[in-house]
């Protein structure tokens, strides 16, 4: 580092933003350190915030048990897609450099409370957790390996839906993953789907809603269409709790809302009920 640093006109991040976290549900402020220490859970309203795939794996998988698979299966730019802000390839490469992940789902073998499973965890920071061809391929391969080794499948979803930069082939991943999961379920293997904040669009409308059980965390956003699209369609304001975990449970689409601290034990308990 040089002895002389020019005075910075504008700091890259405003200090207030750097130090304070704001709960997206109840808007209460707290120091970022406190948010982190509380495992991204709001101490005021119990909203369970987003975790990176790696943090989630560390919390759910037994220590040292996670063995990552399919890391070489990454995105594919079948359409040579570009939009107003540039091309998809540069965008996704920048995401890979920043997140150190190569797709929106991290997949691998693991054990959860002593139960061997195939574990997939989506990372919302990878292009909004969007479902791309690489994501779909990882899930399809995970199903094949799980069937070969008789492992239950556990997927944590966090996604805004299909990745439009991959066009029609991203849409086709909805069918591909649903077919693979159907085959796994037909083979008598359990599939536990954990829908975390947020799980919407093409991901909620495919593998995320197909669990033998579907579980979620408090106040997670889960739905098909976006709130604004719906409001524009029906010309009405929607209630605050619309598309929340609690709303989904009340309407019969979620088996149980489980607190983050209890998730690992709950999954292990279900697997032991089912003899896995």
């Amino acid at each position, binding site marked *: 580092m040089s002895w002389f640093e020019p005075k910075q006109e504008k700091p890259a991040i405003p200090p207030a933003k750097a130090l304070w976290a704001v709960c997206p549900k109840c808007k209460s402020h707290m120091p970022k350190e406190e948010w982190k220490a509380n495992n991204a859970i709001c101490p005021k309203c119990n909203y369970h915030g987003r975790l990176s795939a790696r943090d989630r794996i560390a919390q759910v998988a037994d220590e040292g048990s996670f063995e990552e698979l399919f890391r070489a299966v990454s995105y594919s730019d079948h359409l040579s897609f570009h939009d107003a*802000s540039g091309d998809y390839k540069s965008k996704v490469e920048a995401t890979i450099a920043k997140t150190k992940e190569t797709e929106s789902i991290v997949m691998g073998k693991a054990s959860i409370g002593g139960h061997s499973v195939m574990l997939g965890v989506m990372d919302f920071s990878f292009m909004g957790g969007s479902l791309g061809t690489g994501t779909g391929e990882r899930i399809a391969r995970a199903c094949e390996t799980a069937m070969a080794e008789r492992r239950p499948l556990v997927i944590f979803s966090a996604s805004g839906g299909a990745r439009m930069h991959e*066009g029609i082939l991203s*849409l*086709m991943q909805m069918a591909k993953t649903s*077919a693979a999961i159907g085959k796994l379920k037909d083979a008598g293997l359990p599939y536990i789907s954990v829908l975390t904040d947020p799980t919407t669009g093409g991901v909620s409308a495919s593998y*995320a809603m197909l669990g033998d059980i579907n579980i979620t965390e408090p106040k997670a956003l889960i739905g098909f269409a976006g709130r604004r699209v719906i409001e524009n369609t029906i010309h009405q304001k929607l209630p605050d709790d619309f598309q929340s975990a609690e709303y989904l449970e009340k309407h019969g689409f979620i088996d149980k809302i489980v607190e983050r601290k209890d998730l690992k034990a709950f999954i292990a308990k279900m697997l032991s009920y089912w003899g896995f």
Partner: protein
Amino acid sequence: MASKKTAAKTAQKTSKAKAPTAWDRVQLARDAKRPHLADFLREIASDFEELHGDRLVNDDRALIGGFATIGDEKVLVLGHHKGATVEENMEANFGMVNPDGYRKAMRLGKLAEKFHLPIVTFVDTPGAYPGDTAEARGQAEAIAKSLEVFAGLKTPIVVVVTGEGGSGGALAIAVGDRILMLENAVYSVISPEGCAGILWRDGKAAPLAAEALKITAADLAKLGVIDEIVPEPAGGAQKNHKLAAANVKKAVLKAIKELKKLATEDLMAARYEKLMKMGRFN
């Protein structure tokens, strides 16, 4: 597969003629005068018995199902219903299906499977209905379940994309063994307007988005998403319903005849492999 070659050949032929842009085709696909489900049925089926309801809450008019005779084949027909008049548009919710419609499709699909009758689906929707009631009744679950169920139905499924293939709402009845697509139909993960709004931050950029998303029949044949392009009369299907429907009938009957030759386990293995190949790379 032979049908893939045919698709590529048709694609070449199509692009040699004065080629409409992707955006032109979006307009053609949405043309109110384009043949809709009722028009196709009138032209290609010698009879049709509609069956109603999901056995849960409702009979969704945006998705019609029933048994029909096409040529010498007895089949189940499922299709989006947009309607031709304003009253019909309203009744059919402009072809935007609620969860009840997909649940009706699954119920009838299982009935066709029971008697091993082929299923023919007609796809023409702007998308699944984005409404509060649709969410309350589980739009996401209904689409997801449809994908799982149709991937596993032990009977031949022929899909015809006739107009707008609008995202998940289209795909929910578009999993099958042969995917046919009319020359001017479009099929996309998101509407060009929706994509332009998000990635261009300007809905007026829809023609650019339509181009970038690769949503035409020729594009989809190249990507291996569809098996065959069904030619339309000069100027588009709206110019001559009879001719458009005759082409559809011919392609559907040919596909059914081919699929019926397969043993069920081979049919299922091929459908699974077809889905697994989507976007696969080494």
